[in-house]
């Protein structure tokens, strides 16, 4: 960050205090680096992204990374990664005839069982059910650039998958599982 940027932020903060407004925001320079970690997960969601690796991309400590990422993008980093993997799996189910086990491995899962379970938890359908439904309906999206189509297929995941599972089961105990990959 240049000195001009810094002095501007300081000046903004001083004015905000004067006007008694909260500047609860994050440092744009940090956000830009957090975005880089998000971009890297987008580009290779099938890879393993332990928090240490992500924190390295953003140039911050692991603890700082997980907290700042969630504050910036609304979801913990691992859950974000999960939505990207599911989104990609949905696209592959829809657009290819690849076997489901191949899609599972291609999108970053180590076992077909885990993939199927998480997929159903997130989308409400099994991979084969989703494939049958999607392939039956015609798509007219060839005029829209790919990333926007892809974003439209991204699952909304406002709560943890474990929590979603528990709610479905009628069990309301507090989640203990961490969403930050170790």
């Amino acid at each position, binding site marked *: 960050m*240049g000195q*001009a*940027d810094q002095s*501007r*932020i300081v*000046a*903004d903060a001083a*004015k*905000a205090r004067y*006007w008694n*407004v909260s*500047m609860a*925001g*994050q440092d*744009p*320079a940090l*956000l*830009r680096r*957090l*975005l*880089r970690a*998000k*971009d890297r997960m*987008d*580009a290779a969601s099938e890879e393993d992204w332990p928090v240490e690796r992500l924190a390295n991309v953003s140039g911050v400590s692991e603890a700082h990374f997980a907290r700042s990422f969630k504050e*910036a*993008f609304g979801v913990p980093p691992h859950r974000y990664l999960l939505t990207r993997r599911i989104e990609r799996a949905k696209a592959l189910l829809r657009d290819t005839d690849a076997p489901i086990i191949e899609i599972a491995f291609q999108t970053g899962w180590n076992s077909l069982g885990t993939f199927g379970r998480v997929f159903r938890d997130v989308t409400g359908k099994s991979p084969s059910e989703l494939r049958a439904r999607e392939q039956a309906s015609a798509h007219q999206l*060839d005029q829209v*650039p*790919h*990333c*926007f189509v892809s974003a439209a297929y991204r699952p909304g995941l406002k709560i943890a998958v474990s929590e979603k599972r528990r709610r479905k089961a009628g069990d309301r105990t507090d989640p203990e599982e961490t969403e930050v990959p170790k």
Partner: protein
Amino acid sequence: MTEGIGVVGLYVHDQDGALDFYVGKLGFQVHTDARNGNYRWLTVKHPNQPSFELGLFLPQEPVLDAVTAHTMREMVAKGAMPPLVLVVDDCRAAYDKLRAKGVEFIQEPIARFGGVDANFRDPSGNAWKMIEARS
């Protein structure tokens, strides 16, 4: 033809850096660079589109209040601004050339839907999709 879109603006975190990126790396040309005190009206144009200006603006006072200006800088840095599309003749060649100049690509060229596309960001966080025109 005299009617049409003249300027579309982007928010950037630093106008000198944006100028270096859009002119020095992407090969755009400066259209207007006018200063008045702290305020700088800076627009660039693509060499093939002399009448379309891309504004590189700083979210700043007095155009925006201090808190809003800061919020806008956050939004840009989070990559939350609307999509931009750059059309090129040869996506892979443009990718090689721009990457060698230090452009931050977030997606390598991929052939799909009868075209080739790649993604990059400007230093502020604005995302561009670079698409090879379908022949």
